[in-house]
């Protein structure tokens, strides 16, 4: 979202669109090869990434990848595992052996109940996008305070900004701790005034982040939010 775009105007493609140029590039995500040339399979913008052509989708459901930091809500508990809603097509499993506590069989609910939120990592993802999560790792834990907002996954790079500049400015202005999980959930932790400033700023980024002048709109949002 900086002034110096590497390419010219981002080119929007629709599913089925035949891409006549770029024949020298390898087909990547959102591109299939046919006799006529490359064909886009999703609505999005074309990206040339070191010899591979792909479509950066405009809208997409979160598809978990192994190693992703995710925020999940406990949707069900059994005696030895939790089911987490991680905003993907399938609930993720969190077995008690991967919880940060020593859990006796049958005692899972006393550690974490339905509706509670966790910061976890996708450990294994199979080909049907089913996930096993772990809470063993630095910083992974139950989230018991603050606020979680949802943003479209494709907006995550916009929210981070170049070298994390945008999210850093929101952290500073709101005096909040903010964690952006890969599944489009953003945890904001701070006092209620700070949460309000941060949530408002995130809304500004996700709704208008593709237009120039984001920094000044954010500054206005920070000023307005602190009244």
């Amino acid at each position, binding site marked *: 979202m900086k002034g110096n775009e590497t390419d010219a105007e981002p080119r*929007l493609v*629709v599913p089925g*669109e035949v891409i006549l140029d770029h024949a020298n590039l390898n087909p990547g995500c959102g591109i299939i090869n046919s006799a006529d040339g490359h064909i886009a*399979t999703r*609505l999005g913008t074309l990206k040339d990434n070191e010899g591979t052509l792909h479509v950066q989708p405009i*809208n997409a*459901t979160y598809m978990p990848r192994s190693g992703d930091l995710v925020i999940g809500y406990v949707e069900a508990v059994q005696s030895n595992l939790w089911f987490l809603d991680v905003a993907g097509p399938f609930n993720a499993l969190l077995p008690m052996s991967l919880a940060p506590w020593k859990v006796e069989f049958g005692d899972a609910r006393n550690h974490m109940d339905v509706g509670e939120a966790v910061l976890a990592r996708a450990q294994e993802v199979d080909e049907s996008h089913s996930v096993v999560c772990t809470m063993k790792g630095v910083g992974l834990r139950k989230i018991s305070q603050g606020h979680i907002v949802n943003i479209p996954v494709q907006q995550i790079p916009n929210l981070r900004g170049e070298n994390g500049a945008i999210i850093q400015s929101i952290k500073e202005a709101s005096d909040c701790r903010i964690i952006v999980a890969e599944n489009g959930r953003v945890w904001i932790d701070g006092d209620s005034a700070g949460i309000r400033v941060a949530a408002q700023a995130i809304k500004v980024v996700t709704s208008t982040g593709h237009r120039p002048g984001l920094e000044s709109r954010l500054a206005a949002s920070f000023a307005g939010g602190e009244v």
Partner: protein
Amino acid sequence: MGGYGDVKLLNDDGSRLDGRAIDESRPVEVKVGVIPVADGSAWVKHGLNEAVCAVYGPMEAHPRKIQLQDQAVIDVRYNMAPFSTSDRIRPGFNRRSREISKVTAEAFASTVMVERYPRSKIRIEIEILSAEAGTRCVGITAASVALADAGIPMRGMIVGVASGKIEDTVVLDLDKAEDNYGQADLPMGIMPTTGEIAFMQMDGDLSMDELQQAIDYNFTAAAEIHDIMEAALRAHYDGGDE
């Protein structure tokens, strides 16, 4: 097909009762993102027909017995709102809607990259708000745009179009009178970018030559409507309409 030519549907100058030429489609309008809570959505007006479509998913296929281990299930519901026709339709089970839902789902299963999402389902909810002949085609057009809006990968967008026969003449895009009193109707779902046909039904009476003429009309119309669908998607996402 009802009357078999006993109602006059063509003017003396060869034009149709609503003034269209025999190879002229009714006007088509498309809007994207009309259902804020859906993952993707579209509104299509085709002549006096009006349809909306919402897409949800991919999500886990429920109940488990409908899951396919190697691909996603395309779950289509085509439904006519009670007030969509001149005689009110009682809500509830309807054989016609079930059949249309089934063949529409199979059309999209052939173009959506279902193998990407094993054990999932993609819900396509088509609601007809006004029906004036050709609603299954309008529903297909709306569903394609809604799928694109939802970011579902597919080989191309299917366009719903129909041709038919009135007074022994093959015409494009039957309106209600032509549908009621004409001799044949050939609705198709065409993917103009590849030239494939993903959906077809037909009823009435057509010769082989007439069929070829009807198919030709359908392909021409599908390409034109595809341009309108594409323009609507571009206007929504490229035009900076926020």
